[in-house]
């Protein structure tokens, strides 16, 4: 079962020339030349449609791909090696840069993994859990908007890209108000969050949700029944259910192929088991299905967000002072006002900053439903503040591994559709 899935094409333009008499000109044997050898095309790491630094070596027979070999690793930064030298809190900014289109979701997944190791995942305050769900779903909308916008742009519908990016700007404004940065948020901490919702944020978020649904409708109007889009994506890049499961696909790619699996429903974390939402499942597994799944997931995220904003303990302004971190002084930094005046808080501050939170020895794996799929962290700890081994299970790595299986048999122009519909992020794939 070789990785390089090669196929033979029955009928290509080259072979068809066998039947043309007029081309046997002079020197003889030119028809053999016209049949041609296969051409190796390098869709290099610097390419407008490869969504980051992905290199694919395509072997083409005319217009049809016979072999595809993706070459990843151009964005490899050694995150796992770095994690072995840092405390758990120091690694949080590195998680921003994994799936850099949805940094809040990565922060939440990592914090939950470390909290699982420490055994405090279930005792997080309710307000903290609701805010984390809000962050994850905002990240999901943001990532899918970009994925769909870039997909549509690559396929040819340039307007959709600008529409989705207008809404993403609003999300960035929300995130900037919440965390201080648009992109590299580093919002969660072990045991809680770095800061609470700012005043007026919930109202701003509700206003955004009203506007974004209109935008979804506009994008769907431009794409879903668009003859050209449907022709370019229908029955292109079909991934069967068995292949999707076997290659370890996850997220919308898996659900587009018909597998009913969403970690928020199967192994619920945070408050997802108390929220009402549906999980869209595709039927055929082609690019069009994956587009529809992502579109519907965004609408479901809006539904989740409405419920969270209504139900968040403490309300929009948290006048009652609901906590957002666990009350353990050895894990969460104490308030600054106490640090310089009280001995105990000073010691806690010192220990947490210099030595990190004291995690027990053991190993855990925690997987969260990120926009791209299942982002998992395997942490092996020998006690203390730094992990012995941290492995990041990147959804885009598995999603890309199916390329050599899916691409052969398609035409050159379908590569762009398939890459866009798989919606991977190289930051995550290469770490």
């Amino acid at each position, binding site marked *: 079962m070789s990785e390089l899935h090669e196929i033979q094409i029955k009928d290509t333009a080259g072979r068809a020339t066998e039947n043309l008499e007029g081309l046997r000109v002079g020197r003889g044997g030119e028809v053999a030349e016209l049949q041609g050898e296969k051409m190796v095309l390098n869709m290099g790491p610097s390419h407008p449609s490869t969504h980051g630094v992905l290199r694919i070596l395509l072997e083409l027979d005319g217009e049809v791909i016979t072999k595809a070999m993706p070459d990843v*690793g151009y964005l490899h930064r050694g995150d796992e090696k770095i994690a072995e030298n840092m405390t758990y809190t120091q690694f949080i900014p590195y998680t921003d840069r994994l799936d850099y289109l949805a940094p809040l979701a990565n922060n939440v997944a990592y914090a939950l993994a470390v909290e699982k190791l420490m055994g405090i995942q279930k005792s997080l305050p309710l307000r903290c859990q609701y805010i984390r769900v809000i962050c994850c779903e905002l990240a999901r909308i943001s990532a899918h908007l970009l994925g769909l916008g870039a997909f549509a742009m690559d396929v040819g519908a340039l307007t959709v890209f600008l529409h989705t990016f207008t809404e993403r700007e609003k999300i960035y404004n929300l995130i900037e108000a919440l965390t201080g940065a648009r992109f590299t948020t580093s919002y969660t901490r072990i045991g809680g969050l770095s800061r609470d919702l700012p005043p007026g944020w919930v109202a701003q978020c509700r206003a955004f949700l009203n506007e974004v649904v209109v935008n979804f409708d506009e994008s769907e109007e431009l794409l879903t029944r668009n003859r050209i889009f449907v022709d370019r994506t229908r029955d292109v890049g079909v991934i069967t259910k068995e292949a999707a499961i076997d290659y370890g696909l996850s997220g919308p790619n898996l659900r587009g192929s018909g597998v009913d699996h969403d970690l928020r429903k199967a192994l619920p974390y945070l408050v997802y088991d108390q929220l009402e939402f549906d999980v869209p499942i595709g039927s055929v597994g082609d690019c069009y299905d994956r587009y529809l799944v992502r579109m519907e997931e965004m609408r479901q995220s809006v539904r989740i967000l409405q419920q969270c904003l209504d139900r968040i303990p403490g309300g929009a302004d948290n006048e009652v002072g609901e906590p957002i971190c666990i009350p353990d002084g050895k894990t969460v930094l104490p308030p600054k006002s106490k640090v310089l005046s009280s001995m105990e808080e000073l010691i806690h501050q010192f220990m947490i900053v210099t030595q990190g939170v004291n995690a027990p020895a053991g190993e855990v794996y925690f997987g969260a439903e990120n926009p791209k799929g299942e982002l998992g962290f395997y942490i092996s700890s020998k006690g203390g503040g730094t992990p012995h081994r941290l492995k990041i*299970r990147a959804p885009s790595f598995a999603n890309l591994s199916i390329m050599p299986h899916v691409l052969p048999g398609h035409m050159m122009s379908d590569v762009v559709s398939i890459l866009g519909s798989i919606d991977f992020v190289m930051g995550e794939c290469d770490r």
Partner: protein
Amino acid sequence: MTSGAITTGEVLARQMQARFGNLVVHVGEFRGDWSVGIRDADRMVEVCEFAKKDLGFDYLVDLLSVDHCGEDPRFGLVYELYGYGHRCRLRLKTQVSEEVGEVPTVSGVWRGADWLEREVYDMMGIRFRGHPDLRRILMWDGYPYFPLRKDFPLEGKRSDLPDVAFTRPAPLEGGPFVTVAGGKDPVAREPRSRTV
């Protein structure tokens, strides 16, 4: 996770133990995760086939290696599994020593193991017998080291990509981003320079 899910995870781990007898050295639970230790890495394919076909673990979530530098056997391999039918996770663990350095591939059981094993080979240097295409995936072909091993320094080692580029170790002098956690004084924690 409800208590129903934890019980079923244990049930599957015990079934694994019942089937393989003394090949299973350890069945344990930590924070709700059940893990099964396999004594002999050479029989991993059999164990994985049993896990996939009989226990219903059709999804290989992750395959990773751990370097227990100083212990013998040096490397640990962890197979993280999940089944869509019963929605349970299981972890299979095995060891391989540095001298042997080789384990049979499970890419015949789950095709997703293909790239995962290539990454393990690339980062840790463990070879996989029977792998269809075992070459480096994140680093370039011909890179001479295995970066995730504990004896490979954080700043990297000098290496060459012939005709294209060369790499020098990363300058860590005064780099604020790396501290030696728990060092005895500030100078030990944040060294001003690192000898390469």
